[in-house]
């Protein structure tokens, strides 16, 4: 789209669909859609950004793009860490944030039907105001980021022990296909109810894990859960091995744990704002410091139920020679002027400043993925060594998923995004960390940038990969949907 006449023509058509004020090709607007602003991934470039308000507008935009063979990139906040919505081949960014409504809450079947652009902040605020007895599974993401994008990219939720990845929390989808047709998958395909993806063929898989390369989701049914009283615990482990051993036992103890995640020492100190690298040993066990800081959340209808669960939890930890304390009692591990920061960890969505140390320069990217419980410890040490080799601080974060059926782990690197050399160093470091993680066998990168997606596919069964590509070609014959993402 280099010819001015084409730009004007497309602009006019887009304005006809969404209204003049919701389409832009001003460089000052487009700049903000070229980046995944916290990562080390290279920026891209788009030609237009457009903000539709309803499915019919999305349908018309996609129809236009397909006719003109212009790339279309679905977008909500752009900070998914993997750069999966950086426009790699120009075209139209479809910013879905005007489609941020909760359309229905079914209290009996415990689900909500939401629009595709809803953010965590909007969803949480809506439920708190209108349905305080119900809650959604929320990622440890900032409030301005997208709900449905996280779900379809296998985001890990604060109910991860209950239901697994965000994908498991999807009951149904309404999707605009690359040819402009609107389809529904799940129970909503054959009824007015969005209670689940059974019993018809589960077509949701055509849109889950594809990072927006097969269609634009305009509505979704998502599972809600009772908002029960909770207790949070900090579980300390001298080493990551010890902590993970406890977590494996807790996962099988039938305690009704809804979430189990953990940080290593370096990530903990980053959230505490410790600046002096000399004070942050990358191998803390050698300095006699614990390296495992678990956060375990238990819910229960009554205090008695919670007391009983607590007793068992404490017993399991002490039998392993480690300890657990109620979350509030652990507040002393934080500097006094950051106690408020500590307290936010039990409230999702989180604010980005709590995740890593932004005053180092606003950059942070992780390499991470799903992994067998058998490999999580080995993966941690391999990733840590890779980071140390590059002189970066190895911040690690992991989670037990779906009752302990699988795990996730990721290593984060903080860097100064205004320093191109440091950003490049972070990029090389992340690639090495990724390579090390893959050596454990069961690791598969999630939310992968193109280079990591290529690595995922290197190990994929050729027939399966061919099958996948045929499906993509069938759905998107002109290759307009989020191209350049490595598929």
């Amino acid at each position: 789209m280099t010819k001015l006449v084409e730009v004007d023509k497309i602009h006019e058509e887009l304005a006809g669909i969404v209204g003049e004020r919701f389409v832009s090709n001003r460089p000052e607007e487009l700049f903000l859609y070229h980046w995944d602003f916290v990562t080390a991934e290279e920026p891209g470039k788009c030609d237009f950004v457009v903000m539709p308000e309803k499915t019919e507008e999305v349908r018309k935009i996609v129809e236009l793009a397909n006719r003109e063979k212009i790339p279309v990139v679905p977008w909500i906040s752009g900070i998914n860490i993997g750069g999966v919505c950086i426009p790699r081949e120009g075209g139209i960014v479809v910013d879905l944030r005007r489609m941020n409504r909760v359309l229905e809450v079914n209290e009996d079947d415990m689900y909500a039907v939401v629009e595709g652009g809803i953010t965590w902040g909007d969803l949480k605020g809506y439920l708190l105001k209108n349905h305080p007895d119900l809650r959604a599974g929320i990622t440890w993401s900032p409030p301005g980021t997208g709900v449905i994008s996280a779900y379809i990219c296998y985001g890990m939720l604060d109910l991860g022990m209950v239901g697994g990845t965000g994908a498991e929390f999807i009951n149904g989808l309404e999707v605009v296909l690359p040819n402009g047709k609107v389809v529904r998958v799940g129970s909503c395909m054959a009824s007015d109810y969005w209670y689940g993806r059974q019993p018809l063929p589960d077509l949701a898989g055509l849109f889950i894990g594809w990072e927006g390369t097969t269609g634009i989701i305009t509505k979704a049914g998502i599972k809600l859960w009772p908002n029960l009283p909770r207790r949070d615990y900090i579980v300390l482990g001298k080493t990551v091995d010890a902590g993970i051993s406890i977590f494996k036992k807790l996962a099988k103890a039938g305690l009704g744990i809804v979430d189990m995640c953990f940080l290593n020492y370096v990530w903990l100190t980053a959230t505490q704002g410790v600046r002096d690298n000399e004070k942050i040993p990358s191998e803390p066990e050698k300095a006699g410091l614990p390296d495992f800081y678990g956060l375990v959340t238990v819910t229960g209808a009554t205090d008695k139920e919670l007391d009983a669960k607590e007793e068992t939890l404490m017993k399991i930890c002490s039998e392993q020679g480690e300890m657990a304390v109620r979350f509030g009692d652990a507040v002393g591990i934080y500097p006094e002027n950051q106690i408020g920061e500590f307290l936010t960890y039990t409230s999702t969505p989180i604010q980005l400043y709590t995740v890593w140390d932004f005053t180092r320069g606003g950059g942070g990217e992780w390499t991470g993925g799903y992994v067998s419980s058998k490999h999580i410890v080995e993966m941690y040490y391999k990733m840590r060594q890779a980071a140390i080799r590059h002189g970066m601080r190895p911040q690690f974060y992991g989670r037990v998923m779906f009752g302990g059926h699988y795990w996730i782990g990721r290593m984060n690197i903080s860097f100064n995004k205004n320093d191109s050399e440091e950003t490049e160093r972070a990029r090389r470091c992340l690639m090495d960390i990724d390579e090390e993680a893959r050596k454990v066998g069961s690791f598969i990168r999630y939310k992968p940038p193109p280079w990591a997606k290529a690595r995922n596919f290197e190990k994929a069964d050729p027939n399966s990969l061919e099958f996948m590509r045929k499906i993509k070609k069938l759905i998107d014959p002109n290759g307009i949907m989020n191209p350049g993402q490595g598929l």
Partner: protein
Amino acid sequence: MARPKEKELLDKIMGKYIPGRGVTEKVTIPDRVSLERYESLEYYKDQVYRCGKCGQCRYTYQNAYLARSCPSGELRKFESYYLGGRNLLLWGLTSGQLRWSDALAEILYHCTLCGNCTQQCQLEGIHTYALEWLSAAREKAVEEGYGPMPEQKRYTQSVLDENNPYIEKHDERLNWLGNKKAKLPKKADAVYFVGCTSAYRQKKIASSTFDVLSHLGKDFTVMQDEWCCGSPLIWTGQVEVAKKCAEHNIKEIEKTSAELVITSCSGCYRMLKEVYRDKFKIDYEFEVVHSPVYVMDLIKKGELTLEKPINKKVTYHDPCHIGRHMGIYEPPRELLQRIPGLELVEMFRNRHNAWCCGAGGGVKSSFKELASFAAQERLQEAMATGAEILSSACPFCYRNLSDAKEENKMDIQIMDVMELVQMSMKT
């Protein structure tokens, strides 16, 4: 305080409702970044890019996300109109990835500088200093020839010609005083700094304040040659003209030998109290106090009792310039609560979380749609409380809210706190 039902909800959600801060678990801001205020964009360039564009700045009531905070972003929707977007545009600018343009200037000026976003962002540098670089960016826009906006140029010319932005005659500035004008003393213990909006538009605020001060029997005067305080100039990046106004006003105040300056307008208050000294480095000896704070102090000292009942339900709108910018939240509320019969009810977004009226930062003149949009939303929020009167302590908020009320035929009365005080005084 929030309305009972909402307070109950907020308590249930967070267990921690802090008056003046809404729902917050973040009780302290880590003091890890210590910078000067009122500096140039260049000075802040190592802060702007630290923003992760996480969206926290778009919501009030942190961790509860119960309402939106940014009038500009909510109207225009594009990323560029929220704080996160503006931060990263300034990164683009200061790192050479973007160049100055009319469009960029329009984005940077399409903001009331209300500061609600910075209250919500808990990233230390941004929380404390984002308003500094948003203002500094406008100074840079002026320097580069992209600012101010055309309508702002028009009122600036009026300030240069007639010492007020309303294109009115300077010698008519005190017409609201009628024949009292001739009796104004040249020297007094206190100066009532009227401000352009009260002098030329919301004259009832000026006369009410004058009456209250007279009733108190205080030795005060109004300056014959008061000029615009400079607020509409400084927040549109026009430092030099604003500084000239400041120098003139300081000189005039000093001529009166006053030890106290009392303001009606929250914009004037911030200028006189802070900007003249901290930005323009002008030293002076007198104290500056906003009228409701002054009156409340006298009530506490027993020098004034409000006796005539006003049997009305009233809600209070926090002006950004005295609220978020200067930390005055409680005295106007306390004052209203001293009026017999008056029932004070709070809007959902109050104090630090208050939704801006939409007038400030040069917006009322240059972005009428934004000014009207913000005011309408505030009026609806006020009406939802069941209040019959929406009260404030700023004539510019009053003016914008009144305009939106008329435009949309909304059924709520708008009154300044000092008008209510005057009504309640024993005559």
